[in-house]
């Protein structure tokens, strides 16, 4: 990042929430980069920026769409990059219709038979189906598979190199974003046209062969019902400007805390196996062959997937994985539907989930809708919490608004609750994977105190005991557990399993001699190799823990290849083939990174080239080619089925091939761009305990609410609210309001306010600040209320949790909840807890604000399908 010429930070409070990484922004600034911060509030990040642009929460696509429009309208795109490295020239299916044609919907919106959803067939390239590199492979792959995996006909992709055809991606893009004019951005985001144009111009002039710009985001982009599409919009901006795969470019997803990146790579996600390999579905993956047919690709790097799956099965099931039993594929658990966090909690609240392990997480505060989270756990038979302290989640059976109100007594809760003290990072060996895929090792400094143990210890010994418990069982359902390899050596006084032995397993080894493999290109599909995660293969190359390398930066190049290890294959910039032109020469001397050495006949550079080492730029695949042979010498995006960066996504998404501005589920205004108000494919949970507020122009909930973190506390507070040095820095829950809203509502700085949404109400101290200003939208003012979400009912410093106000509504692609934009009301004064306890009133019947009729039924009717209409309050 230090090599950037311009850094656009949007959907992230980089300086406050990622202060250590922010040093590289400051380094870039010192070297002359322009720092732009697009955020509803003026934060400590804005204080460091050259330009701060406030936009209304939930209008990120409108802003980014405006940038795309500006780039196209003024022909500021990087033409050579665009033409060769993206799918700009590809012809799309004749049947495709855009949101321009269909009032804010894409073609394929199917409301007949079952739940309304998109049929994606018309989104494909003309005559060719592509298996997505990420996203919903099982849905797309299944539809495309015939005799083998989808993508066999990739050589038939039609292109128009002149970009003139109205059916080519470039022209579709132009039409789709035609209405995202600077005036529309002003009207939608509440950002002045002048400031918008200044940013657009700065970004464009800082991009090109000689210059690069970076985009940074975090959960300010993801936690929306259109979260994935916001990031898609950013990808389009960066592909148009030629900023991917080049030094100082890219899109940086900043991670909220240590090793969150690691927990997606080797996932704690329900729908992925290690290395972004899809989890098998019960119906579609009856056999290994069927599974590979529907989830791997005939073209691009994912054609290698069978090698990774078989190596994974060998690592997990060892000798029980044989050629004659499909490498024990039947032992893998299967999905029967959506098992995401929100669905699991909603099911648990219905009594359908019996047990719940919570490790290193405090969902009652950190996830959405704390009241529903507690309700769910009360319906579980047992709950296990592992943490440093008794968090709100560990105390769900006795701490919460319902107990304070007297609606429920702890002795009525039937759940069996177990609490295990956890070891801190300094008390165990292990690794952290950070935002830039760098995997760094940490050594144990001391033994954990008392009964505290590492997660590794807990899971290893739990598995060991379970295996003992079922030893001798001949029941076929117990076979996966018994077949699991679980032989990690232990050490120390507490029989701690060796973390390094797990790194060795993840790296992979040849079965015959047990020697570590040097990387994922050595993995095989014939059962001769094992690897716990192909993407991390090479992290224990030569039998050395590569993660523990600590060669200082002054002893190596600025790329620092010998500091720790980065996946994949120690590459520091992904898709870095794009840092050279189609002929393999650097785009410019200033941005030189990886290039083709024609004498050596291979790719060389400052970093490990992210390309097939000896494949010349001039290589072109045969029309019938499959597998790695389909990757042309000028296809930098090797994971993609067609080797190109996707401006337009023909596959993978459930809510459209192009990003489109939809209002959040709860918004005070009507969608200024389309008659369609919200993302039609968003996921809702229609329940009495999860009411929504749909109507816009509603005086009952007139303001926009947004939630966030501040520098002083750590996420849900488990590591900071029990710590006096951190607690004193920000000792109470507060809300941030503008001076205008404070005057309008009657709030006093340092006083109290009550904040309400359709689901609940909380109290908070008031911080009146000029860092927030109301948004001027087409002649009307929209106020916003900012809430940090760190506090809860336990700990040294306490306060109401912001998530009592949030609901269950999610992005369809990744099931993340919408916490960054919803509607609320705010009143001066504290919440009356005693009154309700005395009168015995329950949630939903509480007194309305003066002069306002309020009942939950009026807040949104229950129906089977998400509302697809705009609804004005009446």
């Amino acid at each position, binding site marked *: 990042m230090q090599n950037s010429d311009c850094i656009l930070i949007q959907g992230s409070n980089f300086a406050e929430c990622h202060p250590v990484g922010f040093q590289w922004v400051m380094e870039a600034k010192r070297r002359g980069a322009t720092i732009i911060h697009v955020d509803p509030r003026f934060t400590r990040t804005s*204080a460091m920026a050259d330009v701060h642009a406030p936009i209304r929460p939930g209008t990120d696509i409108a802003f980014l769409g405006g940038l795309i429009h500006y780039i196209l309208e003024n022909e500021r795109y990087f033409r050579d990059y665009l033409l060769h490295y993206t799918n700009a020239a590809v012809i799309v299916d004749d049947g495709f219709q855009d949101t321009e044609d269909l009032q804010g919907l894409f073609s394929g919106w199917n409301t007949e038979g079952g739940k309304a959803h998109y049929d994606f067939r018309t989104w494909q390239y003309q005559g060719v189906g592509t298996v997505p590199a990420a996203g919903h492979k099982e849905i797309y792959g299944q539809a495309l598979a015939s005799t083998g995996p989808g993508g066999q006909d990739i050589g038939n992709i039609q292109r128009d190199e002149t970009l003139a055809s109205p059916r080519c991606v470039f022209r579709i893009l132009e039409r789709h974003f035609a209405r995202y004019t600077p005036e529309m951005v002003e009207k939608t985001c509440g950002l002045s046209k002048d400031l918008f144009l200044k940013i657009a111009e700065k970004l464009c002039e800082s991009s090109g062969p000689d210059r690069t710009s970076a985009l940074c985001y975090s959960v300010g982009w993801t936690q929306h019902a259109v979260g994935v599409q916001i990031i898609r919009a950013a990808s389009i901006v960066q592909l148009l400007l030629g900023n991917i795969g080049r030094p100082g470019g890219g899109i940086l997803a900043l991670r909220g805390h240590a090793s969150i990146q690691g927990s997606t790579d080797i996932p704690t996600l329900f729908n992925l196996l290690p290395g972004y390999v899809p989890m098998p579905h019960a119906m579609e993956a009856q056999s290994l062959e069927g599974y590979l047919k529907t989830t791997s690709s005939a073209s691009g790097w994912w054609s290698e997937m069978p090698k990774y799956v078989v190596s994974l099965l060998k690592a997990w099931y060892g000798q029980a994985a044989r050629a004659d039993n499909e490498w024990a594929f039947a032992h893998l658990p299967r999905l029967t539907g959506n098992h995401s966090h929100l669905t699991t909690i909603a099911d648990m609240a219905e009594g359908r989930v019996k047990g719940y392990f919570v490790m290193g997480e405090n969902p009652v505060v950190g996830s959405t809708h704390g009241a529903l989270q507690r309700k769910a756990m009360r319906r579980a038979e047992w709950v296990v919490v592992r943490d440093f302290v008794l968090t709100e989640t560990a105390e769900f059976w006795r701490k919460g608004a319902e107990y304070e109100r007297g609606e429920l007594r702890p002795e009525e809760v039937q759940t069996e609750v177990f609490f295990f003290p956890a070891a801190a990072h300094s008390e165990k060996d292990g690794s952290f994977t950070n935002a830039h895929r760098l995997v760094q090792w940490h050594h144990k400094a001391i033994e954990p105190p008392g009964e505290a143990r590492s997660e590794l210890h807990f899971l290893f010994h739990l598995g060991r005991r379970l295996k003992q418990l079922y030893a001798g069982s001949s029941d076929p359902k117990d076979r996966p557990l018994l077949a699991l390899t679980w032989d990690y050596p232990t050490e120390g006084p507490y029989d701690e399993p060796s973390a390094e032995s797990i790194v060795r397993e993840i790296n992979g080894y040849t079965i015959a001699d047990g020697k570590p493999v040097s990387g994922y290109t050595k993995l095989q599909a014939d059962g001769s190799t094992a690897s716990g995660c192909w993407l991390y293969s090479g992290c224990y190359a030569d039998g050395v823990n590569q993660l523990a390398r600590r060669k200082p930066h002054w002893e190596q190049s600025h790329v620092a290849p010998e500091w720790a290890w980065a996946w994949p294959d120690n590459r520091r910039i992904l898709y870095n083939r794009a840092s050279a032109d189609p002929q393999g020469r650097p785009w410019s001397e200033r941005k030189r990174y990886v290039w083709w050495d024609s004498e050596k006949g291979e790719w060389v550079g400052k970093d490990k080239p992210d390309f097939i080492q000896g494949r010349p730029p001039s290589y072109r695949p045969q029309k019938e080619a499959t597998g790695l042979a389909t990757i042309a010498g000028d296809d930098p995006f090797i994971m993609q089925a067609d080797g190109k960066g996707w401006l337009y996504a023909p596959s993978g998404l459930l809510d459209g091939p192009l990003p489109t501005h939809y209002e959040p589920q709860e918004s005070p205004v009507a969608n200024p761009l389309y008659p369609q108000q919200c993302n039609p494919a968003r996921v809702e949970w229609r329940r009495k305990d999860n009411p929504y507020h749909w109507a816009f122009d509603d005086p009952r909930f007139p303001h926009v609410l947004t939630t966030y973190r501040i520098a*002083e506390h750590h996420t849900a507070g488990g590591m900071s609210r029990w710590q006096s040095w951190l607690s004193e820095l920000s000792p109470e829950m507060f809300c941030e309001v503008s001076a205008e809203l404070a005057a309008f509502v009657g709030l006093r700085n340092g006083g109290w306010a009550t904040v309400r949404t359709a689901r609940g109400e909380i109290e908070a101290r008031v911080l*009146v600040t000029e860092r927030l200003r109301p948004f001027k939208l087409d002649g009307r003012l929209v106020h916003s209320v900012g809430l940090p979400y760190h506090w809860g009912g336990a700990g040294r410093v306490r306060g109401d949790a912001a998530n009592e106000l949030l609901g269950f509504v999610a992005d369809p692609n990744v099931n993340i909840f919408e916490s960054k934009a919803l509607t609320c009301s705010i009143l001066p004064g504290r919440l009356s807890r005693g009154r309700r306890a005395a009168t015995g009133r329950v949630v939903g019947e509480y007194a309305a604000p003066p002069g306002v009729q309020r009942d939950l039924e009026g807040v949104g009717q229950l129906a089977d399908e998400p509302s697809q209409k705009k609804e004005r309050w009446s």
Partner: protein
Amino acid sequence: MAKGFFTDTSVCIGCKACEVACKQWNQLPDDGFFFTGMSYDNTAHLGASTWRHVAFVERPVPLGGQVTGVGRFSLLLESDVCKHCVRAGCLEACPTGAITRTEFGTVYVQPDVCNGCGYCVPACPFGVIDRRADDGRAWKCTLCYDRLKGGLEPACAKTCPTGSIGFGDTEELRAKAYERLAQVRRAGLKEAWIYGDTAESQPGTEGLHAFFLIVGRPELYNLPSDPVVPTKKAGQSWRAMGLASVGVVAAAVGAVLSHR
């Protein structure tokens, strides 16, 4: 060689890591849990248990070189600390010799000698040194004397993620400060200047071992624009007192004489 801090407020992100690192290394207690309503600042000021303090200045004035859509506004951030004055008021006021000048040129309170008389407290022109309520002794930043003895840099400087807190030889720091000043001025921050680095610019303290790059008037950051160590005025006070005594005597004599 004199050691000190150069705090470059133009890159301070207000993360308060310095406050916490200081408290952790020096094992200082918390200052109580009070919501002040003053921006994000809840520790309010330097004191006996807060030896680094980050000031948050929200002001209705734009910052040179910065554009924002929230109107005429800017947020200034500054990590404040004991200035370790070349001529230190606290040291000169201390009757027990508890406060000493170290071999690093810094000002250090020896807790085992301090008797809690508190003379040092009003003698500090910056309001830095303070007595702790429990035992009455005076406490302030030691510039991590113990770490310096061990060849380490102070905890706050070590932890600062953006290099806002620079530690080193004061001469080198001064050169760096002026280099940085030229750079930020070129970038449009015309109001930036160096606070307290020399005896010429701050005669009342004869210069500071901990100096700052700040923007605008020092009062914005709760720093005095012309701090003067009280003992600096001792000669002047004695002269004034002498003059006053002479005047009183003269008046008395005059009164007697005039009534004759």
